[in-house]
């Protein structure tokens, strides 16, 4: 019984690890859309006085760690050039928007925060489209 289950678990492991470079890269980039949506939501809540500045600062810090990880994955990936380019482009926009969000909250600049939130919403939508591409493939 245990041996059968171990075999099934092994098969699952093998099946899941067999991915094309494109799929692998999309998988690595998967958290980006989630982080874009998180930063957008955090910015909205900051504007509504629902979260403190220190929280947004720490959340941007956590998101930046995810950006670095994805950046590394892109540079090591053998996926198609156009896919790598599309993800890099969104990553750069998101990185800039996150940086601006952080600066805006430090300066208590509500207009700039609202702008960053809009940019993050656009990145989030673009990344979710890429995610759908992964689900279809």
């Amino acid at each position, binding site marked *: *019984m*245990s041996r059968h*289950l*171990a075999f*099934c*678990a*092994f098969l*699952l*492991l093998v099946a*899941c*690890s067999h991915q094309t470079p494109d799929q692998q890269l999309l998988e690595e980039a*998967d*958290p980006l*859309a*989630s*982080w874009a*949506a*998180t930063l*957008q*939501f*955090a910015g909205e*809540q900051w504007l*509504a*006085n*629902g*979260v*403190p*500045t*220190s*929280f947004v*600062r*720490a*959340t941007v810090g*956590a998101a930046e760690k*995810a950006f670095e990880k994805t950046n590394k994955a892109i540079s090591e990936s053998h996926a198609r050039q156009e896919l790598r380019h599309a993800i890099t482009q969104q990553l750069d926009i998101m990185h800039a928007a996150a940086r601006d969000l952080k600066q805006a909250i430090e300066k208590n600049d509500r207009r700039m925060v609202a702008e960053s939130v809009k940019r993050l919403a656009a990145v*989030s939508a673009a990344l*979710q489209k890429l*995610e759908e591409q992964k*689900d279809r493939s």
Partner: protein
Amino acid sequence: MKKAMTLALGILTSVGGFFDVGNIATCTQAGARFRFQLIWALLLATLVVIVLVEMSGRFAAVTKKALPDAIREHFGFGFWLVPFIILTLIHILVLGAEIGGICFALHLVTGLPLQVWALPVAILLWVFLWRATFSTIENSTSLLGLITLCFVVATIWLHPPTHDLLQGAVPSMPSKNPENYWFIAVSIIGAVIAPYLFYFYSSGAVEDEWDPSYIPVNRAVAVIGMGFGSIVSLGAIIVAGVVLAPRGIHVDDYHQAALMLTQAFPYWGYVLFAVSMGVACLGAATEVALSMSYTFAQTFGWNWGENLNPAEDARFSLVYTISLLLGSLFMLAGVDPLKLTLLTMAISAAVLPVVAIPMLLLMNDRKLLRDAANGIFSNLATAAIVLLTLVLAVVSIPLAVVGGS
């Protein structure tokens, strides 16, 4: 009258003490990724935990012995040694995850890094364990834990679609990320059926001097208390499913989960999340540290009891002192608390047979339990649970490799 009080307090403490860092991590991940599709895993785990908690309480009430004590006595030290070592490691990992949860809650409130809080939290827990009696610890942390009912209030506030909730109660295949789906399902089960829970519960029953007349109380506490307690976890799945999932927010970091109550409680949601997490983890951390001391003391035949003065059971007190220090090292070393929690839950699920199988054997010993030994229904339920734990033992680690985030 005393039994009615025990029952009422037992139910309240079960509700307040059910939620911990494992539930927070796994339930918010489940809701954020798969909306209500993993409700069935929580319901299944709740059924299992009710059966096992009822058995461990019944065992302690009849034999006046806690489980580790009885397993060592009944099967011998050699048999118990390997499970004891495995469970010691699990205790330290769970304690590290719970301390991580408290540190994260304090980070949310103060904005200071988690590492800063690791040692102060360990010291605070130690002072609490050193000074307080068993009932003070159990009742205060669990009653404070009722704050976690804010997840249930938020659920009512958010009006989730009833039809989707009911669909989630039935197991179904996910449309995407099957490996992540099954990993979270296994982790939910590992978080709810925490191995330390049964040792803590049976040792607590011995500390509270239960006798066979407490069997009905024990049954009611197990069924009603654990049943209602799981509603808080259910609330966490639903709130994450309503608030985080439609926005495409997955919980890869606790900062993402911290936003989940802000929609239901626009100003207080963030604070409520931080306080709920802090209090839930504080209660669980004290229970895990005590469970570790109980297990050590009962394994080596030392004096034990949280109601005793530390001078009367120095080695018992030394174990929780060392375990708190070890548990705080994870946060001091900068380990990601969410990753630590998820890994711990997967390992907890993997070692469940170590807890379930000896319990099944002991519960059938008519010399020990006389009329209170397991009947056919209890044995069928336990056999099903053992089978489930064996499946979990085999699949949890491979799933953590392919499906863990």
